[in-house]
């Protein structure tokens, strides 16, 4: 079955936290589509709603109003178990920190989504992935024995091992130095180019955003810009306009 051209589609999403006078409107009437195979960066200042948007897209949270569809499936109709299975089988996740289970080694961490699903890995794909992220000698190491950059590489491999429809990355370079960041972003770029992986990355780092094809800029819960991403400087310019 070939994926639909629009892998994730959000319509009129709103999310409000709290009630009455203390209510916070994190997202207001946001509609955005993500075509298959694209590398999108969602950016915005603190409080712009970018993390909230990603949570809603990934089925981690439910919108106050509006809808999200993933590969044709409407998320609002799914119960917790179905959402869980969706995340397990169709999504990949990379977080800013604390990605890995401390007591499992790198190989076990990478295979975790498959282990949870009770499925066997595609050995060829797995080995290729491990080569691509450059961790062939580190497979038996625990997270505490890996550098920050290596941990994130493990996380990326995990996010890709089950060939998800979408990879969601939440500030993946936030805790890394510049060289490790470059490695990680490069890998994401390669995943998008070589494997046709759809990637949605939330970041506040202009340099990281420059690796993406498309830039969605949020401010005060709304989309203010949606255009192709340029280099770091042009991204910075764009951010200034939103501030």
């Amino acid at each position, binding site marked *: 079955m070939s994926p639909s051209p629009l892998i994730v589609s959000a319509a009129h999403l709103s999310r409000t936290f709290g009630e009455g006078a203390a209510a916070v409107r994190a997202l207001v009437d946001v509609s955005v589509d993500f075509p298959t195979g694209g590398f999108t960066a969602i950016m915005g200042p603190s409080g712009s709603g970018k993390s909230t948007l990603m949570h809603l897209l990934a089925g*981690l949270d439910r919108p106050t109003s509006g809808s999200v569809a993933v590969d044709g499936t409407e998320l609002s109709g799914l119960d*917790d178990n179905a959402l869980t299975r969706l995340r397990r089988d169709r*999504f990949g996740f990379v977080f800013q920190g604390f990605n890995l289970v401390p007591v499992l080694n790198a190989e*076990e961490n990478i295979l975790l989504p498959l282990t949870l699903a009770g499925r066997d890995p595609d050995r060829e794909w797995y080995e290729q992935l491990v080569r691509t992220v450059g961790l062939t000698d580190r497979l038996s190491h625990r997270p505490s024995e890996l550098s920050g950059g290596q941990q994130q590489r493990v996380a990326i491999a995990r996010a890709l091992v089950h060939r998800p429809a979408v990879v969601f990355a939440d500030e993946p370079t936030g805790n890394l130095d510049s060289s490790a960041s470059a490695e990680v972003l490069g890998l994401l770029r390669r995943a998008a180019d070589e494997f046709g992986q759809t990637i949605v990355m939330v970041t506040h780092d202009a340099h990281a955003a420059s690796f993406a094809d498309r830039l969605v800029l949020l401010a005060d819960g709304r989309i203010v810009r949606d255009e192709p991403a340029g280099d770091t400087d042009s991204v910075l310019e764009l951010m200034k306009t939103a501030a």
Partner: protein
Amino acid sequence: MNRIAFRGLRERKARTIFTLLAVVLGVALISGTFVLTDTISKSFDALVATANVDVKVLSANKGDGFGSAPAPFSASVEAQVRAVDGVAAADGAFRELPVTVADERGRRVGPINGAPTLAFSNVSRRFDPFEYTGRPPRENGEIALSATAAKDAGLKIGDRIRVQGTQKIRPYELVGTTTFGGAGSTGGAAFVVLTLPEVQTHAGEPGKITDLDVQAQPGVAQADLKRRIAAAVGPSILVRTGKEDSRQESKDLSQILGYLRMGLLVFGLVALLVGSFVIFNTFTITVAQRTREFGMLRTIGASRKQVLQAVVQEALLIGLAGSVLGLLAGIGLAPLLAGLLGMIGFDLPSTALVIAARTIVVAIVLGTIVTLLSSLAPALRATRISPMAAMREGSLGTSRVKRRRALALQTAVAGIGLVLMLIGLFAGLDTSTALTLLGIGAVLVFIGAGLLSPLLVGPLAALIGRPLVATGGVAARIARGNAVRAPGRTAGTAAALMVGVALVAFVAIFVNGFKASFSGAFEKTVTAQFVIFDPSGLTPEAVAPAAAELASVGTAANIRVGSAKLPSGADVHLSGLDPKLATEVVRIDWVDGSDDALRALGPLDAMLNADWANERSLRVGSSFVLRNPEREPVRLTVRGTYEDRGQIFGTVVVPDATLRERFGAHTVLAAFIASAPGAGESRVRAELSALLHRDFPTLEPQTRTEFIDSQVGQVSQILYVFYALLALSVIIALFGIVNTLALSVFERTRELGLLRAVGATRRQVRQIVRGEAIITAVMGAVLGVAIGVLFGVLVSRPLGNEGFVLALPYGTLLILLVLGALAGVLAAIAPARRASRVDVLQAVAHG
């Protein structure tokens, strides 16, 4: 998930060990109890079977169990039985007469702690249950003594010892030492073997025996012979086949054993209860600490069930491992428990330990289930961790509605517990149902209190913190703040200690009340200046008459004890007072009667306990019938009723002579001595001591006060045994505190590093951790004392009618609080040191 669970435990070794210990100790106590009682049971089984006795002939009113005088019957029965067709041999014997044994210097020989020394008359070899080194006595001046007692007293064959029963002491030569079933002592008791006439003399029952051993001729069945003998001897004598007799003995023993087992099991269950608090706590904390990890797992697609599995599997592993270790520890603990019992006089032969399949199964199942149940709530909470917890450091605030509902539920739990306890205490149910209800109710009260305790953390911490803050400055203030900040955690840790302290407090209150009631009642009732009393409870009846002849003694009177049965079969306790002398030495609380009425008491008159009389609608002038140990009816007329708060007089008071002659009672509770007018205390004491040393060397005169103190002191011994058993639970709770502190320190590495970075010294950091520990521990102690007092007050209500006085041992309770604080200090030592050694830079950079 298995891997995550298993490796998680391996990694966090220290935490795992402490949690394991919580299970191990409780299971150890329980399995140790089973091993111990099974072993005792088996060793007693060996003793009970006597091979050659085909038929046993006994009195129909056998004395009640160990240590009380048997009811004898005429030795002429022996001739009757011998004449029965089918009897090969029949020997009459006088057995199990409680006596006191002393060496030549007057030092007591035999058990010191309440276990009796029993005298047996010698019988022909085929019926003799003892094995001898040396030989059994053949002449009246010879004696054989149990091997252990002989060894302990340094006696050899040929030495001289003396024996005292109900009459004056008599000398013997030691001709042999005995073992019984291969053991030199049994259950702490010592045995002497004398010739029949000697035992009869000591019993004050010439011409009587307590049982008859009969061997059948070959080919005659036990049951047939029993019938023939029964026909020959008549209904007032009990005839049993050898088999029936063994079975009855086993039954009696196993009943006593059953009580012992139940008692010990209670302590084991308490330890498990405390352990479950600790496990609950540990899992709650670690689940909270792993919020991000669980959140992450949920995000990448682990289902709620898989997260639950992760936590439950950890609990399962701990439960199984802890149970197995606990079982092994329990097997090692059994000998220790035996030693503890030895302290209150219950020695045991060391036979091979019996490890029944049931013990193994119970240990493993119980330990595992308790662990699983304790971890259930935290495990369920883990499943509710939102996937977004992986990304945010937000706290899971519970909504107001949920909190109110939780509060209602927690109060309900405690409330139900209280109600159950009240029902158990006041509904007049049979003892075992009442105790079960009390137990379950108490557990619910503890759980409810534990659940509600977070609410009390604020005010209690403020209160307890005040003295700390006054002395400790800012460190103490931070400590107090920390304790208040996480009320659930502080309360949870404190709750484990609360259970142990509450029980210790309750026991202390109960025993203190008991002591107060006893001494109060005794003070009021006994007016005699001196009391002569044998700690084994068998004062010779000859003491009082002998003392009465001393110049400085005004009145010397016995209070004799005996028992009889109502026609319905119920037992009645009797006291015998000398009508002319009693009022000089005791003061009776008359309800419908007077001292004059007592002095005018005729041989078949009686005074009754007022409550008992009311129950049976007996008044002054009514009469009633009692059956004496030989099953003869004795009709008594009521001449007065009295109130007996101190339970000194039993149910029915009859003249001393009547109790001795009509009811065959030779046991005296004590001899009470009133000084002659003008005789100084020291003179009376000197004369009494001289008399006793000469004729009753194992006895000492005691003043009233000394007597009360020594009685009270005996109760204290039991108290210490209880404390020892409860100590286990307290130790578990302490481990729980150490555990929580260690986890908490680890969790707050960043915060502690920050404190150090802005200028807190290592010492101040240690003070903070210590301060938190003290607040937590004292809180547990305060709650524990409060609940202990509550239980004490509750239990004292129905007992109040029996004369129980609620007397709070303020000193002990205060000591408990201080010990609580000390416990906190102790528990904090290691975690505080770890906290002070936090590497500042590493901590602040720790993301």
